[in-house]
């Protein structure tokens, strides 16, 4: 069999679900309605930290139209997204941990009645000391927000070291020691979270929900409700934007499911916008300290990174988020020795979690701004500095991450050329500037959340005599175009048009498991599974056609809805006829495909965060205009180049790149999930500064600059037809590129995100007063770090394990050392 050229892959085209979206026919969760449906509202805590002393629900229960009132008593079982942090109950049982923590629920005939009843519930709290920041969490181990975690109010503290970093930094020609802060921000999907739960006619539970991770919701519901997972069906409705914000199992999902089973009636809950802000699970605020040793020619000798994360009130993905702040620096640049220490504290604020880039944008900001400072000090152009230290392809990093193809150098050269960088950098008039930054990101997390040996993505294909093909996969459409990738790949393999194929996705009853739309994993993992299923189907069809038409199998081509002899294209049949031949030969046709990522050579604790089948790379140049009198900043233009491996549908790829630029600009310039403390007379509560779309500023069509996008296509052997991720990577370089451009424009460093006019003005004033021309953090608190786990880098003979891990496994495979040495040899070769 041969595939002469691509029929679908690489062609810019309408996404398969495009028509539904532009006609308003896409059914989001809140668009669903069922006979006898009831409505649910939650009562949320008004205090940030307290013990529930009493709760009187009598008035609510007595209200006409109320069917059910639920409290923490009904939900004895804890759940959570990570196995190490099952710290949530659907409704709080005794302690509330942030303003917005749900304490009770009312199910009533309509939303207004439920809301009225919620307001009749009387809760008395005994307030506890509020922990509002990581500094307070470190200073006050008591009262503990949770009874678990590393110590006091520290959820997790980790320390990893790869090689003799202290010697490498001490022996460097220059040492740069910089502090950065990245304020939290939130996903702000246009669609508010909604769930409809039903007891189906068989008495089993069905949950329709705006979730990015139906598989994980399925698991959480089974645990929290004590039901067999096989008796629960979760259907992920298309998400009206996710960006990571719909990746946790949420209180309202568990509550609606419980109520539907109890009442035997459909129950709907839709959060209002204020609740979405309080649900959060967004970007962690992170304080960072980068100590970097650099040689005179701009090479990094060692990096010593500390990060301090404000985790909010629950675990969520926080342990992974913590590791991610330190995972991917080495994947981008050649860093031979490295120490990473990260600490996540609990605070009495909405829980932080994964937002586009998950844990990596914060330290990416610090690293890229520090590189700009290094380039300045060494009088090297920032583009050249980076080109000189790009991580080599097919290499293992100091922390045992395997880099495959890397198009970063091409990305840098492209944006330099396209932006006219050489004529602009340090050459524009005062007030105008350009800044450059780079990034890398996972094409899917190498390890599943629940460690097991099962595939990360499964695809099934059904074909029959109608010529119809249906593809089933648990992947979830959150706007990124996963249905289109799925259908497009199957169409490519079978020589069909995407619209010939029907996709059934995100339904735990009907579709094989896919872990969900997170970690930029869908195109690569689902895509590889889809190709495998489709190739198996093609094989069956080819057998049938070959037997019937007497054409050798290896000469059969699938294209243009036909199966034909490559050497005599007139000889063949329609796709439908071909399927009939195969069905006649084999009986009912169906195939499956699976994808499991390659095993990571990392064997140390914490080495599970960071591995990926391959990484995407991005470079961006941002142009800014800064008014030196007001600090007002505008961005007229952004050039961005993204190493996509291969663009399966360039229309969608471009949309992801530009959407990433947009969201990055929001984070860079204005978005803040910020809190304030009410005065003691008003309960001392820590409340969101502006939980509304009007005051939580995000860029509008008037703020959006021109974006010049280039796609760098070096097909990666790990990706489906060579494709890598694009959903998250392109956001990452934007924030540091903005800060670097501001420095180019007015000569001040804003070392904290967002880069606001106030901060620019403050730095300009400091500069005028002869102080450091900078706005940013000035100290990093003392963190009682755990003993550092020492891992020898691959080029020094390391086998991927920590030398001082007391739990060091004794009998694991030792192939890592062999792989590492081979990689080191390749690395040396590539450098010479």
């Amino acid at each position, binding site marked *: 069999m041969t595939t002469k050229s691509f029929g679908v892959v690489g062609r810019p085209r309408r996404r398969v679900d495009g028509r539904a979206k*532009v006609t308003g026919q896409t059914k989001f969760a809140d668009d669903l*309605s069922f006979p006898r449906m009831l409505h649910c509202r939650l009562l949320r805590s008004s205090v940030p930290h307290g013990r529930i002393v009493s709760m009187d629900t009598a008035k609510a229960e007595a209200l006409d139209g109320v069917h059910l009132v639920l409290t923490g008593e009904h939900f004895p079982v804890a759940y959570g997204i990570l196995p190490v942090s099952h710290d949530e109950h659907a409704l709080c049982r005794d302690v509330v941990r942030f303003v917005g923590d749900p304490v009770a629920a009312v199910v009533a005939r309509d939303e207004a009645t439920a809301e009225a009843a919620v307001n009749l519930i009387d809760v008395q709290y005994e307030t506890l000391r509020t922990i509002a920041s990581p500094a307070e969490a470190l200073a006050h181990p008591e009262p503990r927000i949770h009874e678990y975690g590393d110590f006091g109010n520290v959820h997790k503290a980790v320390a990893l070291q790869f090689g003799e970093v202290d010697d490498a930094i001490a022996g460097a020609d220059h040492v740069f020691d910089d502090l950065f802060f990245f304020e939290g921000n939130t996903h702000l999907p*246009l669609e508010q979270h909604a769930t409809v739960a039903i007891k189906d006619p068989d008495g089993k539970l069905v949950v329709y929900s705006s979730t990015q991770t139906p598989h994980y919701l399925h698991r959480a519901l089974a645990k929290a409700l004590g039901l067999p997972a096989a008796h629960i069906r979760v259907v992920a409705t298309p998400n009206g934007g*996710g960006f990571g914000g719909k990746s946790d199992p949420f209180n309202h999902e568990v509550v609606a499911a419980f109520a539907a089973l109890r009442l035997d009636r459909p129950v709907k809950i839709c959060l209002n916008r204020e609740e979405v802000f309080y649900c959060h699970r967004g970007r962690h605020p992170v304080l960072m300290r980068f100590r970097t040793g650099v040689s005179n020619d701009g090479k990094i000798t060692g990096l010593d990174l500390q990060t301090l994360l404000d985790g909010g009130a629950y675990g969520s993905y926080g342990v992974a988020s913590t590791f991610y702040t330190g995972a991917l620096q080495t994947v981008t640049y050649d860093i031979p020795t490295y120490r990473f220490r990260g600490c996540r504290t609990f605070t009495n604020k909405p829980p932080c979690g994964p937002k586009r880039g998950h844990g990596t944008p914060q330290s990416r900001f610090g690293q890229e701004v520090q590189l700009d400072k290094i380039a300045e000090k060494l009088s090297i152009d920032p583009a050249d500095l980076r080109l000189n230290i790009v991580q080599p392809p097919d290499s293992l990093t100091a922390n045992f991450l395997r880099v495959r193809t890397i198009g970063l150098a091409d990305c840098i050269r492209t944006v330099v050329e396209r932006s006219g960088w050489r004529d602009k950098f340090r050459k524009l008039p005062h007030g105008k500037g350009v800044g450059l930054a780079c990034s890398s990101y996972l094409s899917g997390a190498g390890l599943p959340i629940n460690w097991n040996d099962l595939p990360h993505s499964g695809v099934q294909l059904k074909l029959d005599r109608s010529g119809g093909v249906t593809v089933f996969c648990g992947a979830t459409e959150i*706007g990124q175009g996963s249905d289109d990738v799925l259908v497009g790949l199957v169409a490519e393999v079978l020589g069909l048009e995407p619209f010939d194929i029907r996709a059934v996705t995100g339904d735990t009853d009907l579709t094989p498991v896919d872990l969900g739309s997170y970690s930029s994993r869908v195109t690569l993992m689902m895509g590889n599974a889809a190709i495998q299923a489709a190739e198996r189907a093609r094989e069956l069809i080819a057998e049938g056609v070959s037997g019937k038409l007497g054409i050798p199998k290896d000469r059969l081509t699938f294209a243009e809805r036909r199966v034909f002899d490559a050497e005599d294209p007139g000889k063949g049949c329609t796709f439908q006829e071909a399927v009939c031949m195969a069905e006649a030969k084999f009986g009912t046709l169906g195939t499956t495909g699976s994808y499991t990522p390659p095993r990571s050579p990392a064997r140390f604790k914490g080495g599970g965060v960071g591995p990926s089948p391959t990484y995407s790379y991005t470079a961006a140049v941002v142009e800014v205009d800064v008014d030196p009198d007001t600090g007002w900043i505008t961005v007229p233009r952004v050039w961005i180049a993204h190493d996509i491996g291969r663009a399966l549908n360039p229309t969608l790829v*471009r949309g992801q790149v530009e959407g990433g630029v*947009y969201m990055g600009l929001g984070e860079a310039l204005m978005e803040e999930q910020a809190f304030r403390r009410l005065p003691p007379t008003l309960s001392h509560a820590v409340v969101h500064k502006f939980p509304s779309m009007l005051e939580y500023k995000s860029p509008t069509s008037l703020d959006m600059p021109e974006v010049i996008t280039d796609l760098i296509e070096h097909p990666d052997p790990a990706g489906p037809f060579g494709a890598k991720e694009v959903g998250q990577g392109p956001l990452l370089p934007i924030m540091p590129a903005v800060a670097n451009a501001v420095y180019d424009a007015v000569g001040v460093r804003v070392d904290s995100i967002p880069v606001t006019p106030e901060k620019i003005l403050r730095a300009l004033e400091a500069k005028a007063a002869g102080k450091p021309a900078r706005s940013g953090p000035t100290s990093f608190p003392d963190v009682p770090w755990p003993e550092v786990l020492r891992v020898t880098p691959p080029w020094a003979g390391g086998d991927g394990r920590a030398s001082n891990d007391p739990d060091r496994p004794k009998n694991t495979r030792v192939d890592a050392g062999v792989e590492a040495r081979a990689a080191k040899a390749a690395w040396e070769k590539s450098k010479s």
Partner: protein
Amino acid sequence: MTKLPLALTVNGEPAEALVDPAKTLLEVLREDLNLTGTKHGCELGECGACAVLVDGQPVLSCLLVAHECAGREVVTVEGLVDDGRLHPLQECFADLGGSQCGYCTPGILITAKALLDREPNPSRDLIREALSGNLCRCTGYQQIFDAVEAAAQRAREDQQ
């Protein structure tokens, strides 16, 4: 509250319902008339997702009491399809990536239609201005601008 009869025209057809006087046009469209194409993102007039045309003018249906619309002509995203054919805006949004998650799309299509109805050949700046009340978190707006421009051109060609 006592429900009162409401009669209006929706997408060219008469519609009647018994409606609580406190209900917004958005709620009546979605809950009483089962036209769920119109979305809600804030119900405070901040996001633009609920935009519909009332007597040809784009309005935020979450801020409009339904009974104020008695006897008026309302057009929602469901009303953009004409004689079985997608509106040029719909074709171009689908073809050019103007819609990703699709949640802001109905409001943006309606707002863009109002723009093209009054200005068949809008500049990009005018498009930016017209859509500045409609938030989109997915696209970065570029492909939306492209789609509106392409639709304007297609509509002009259709007229000729």
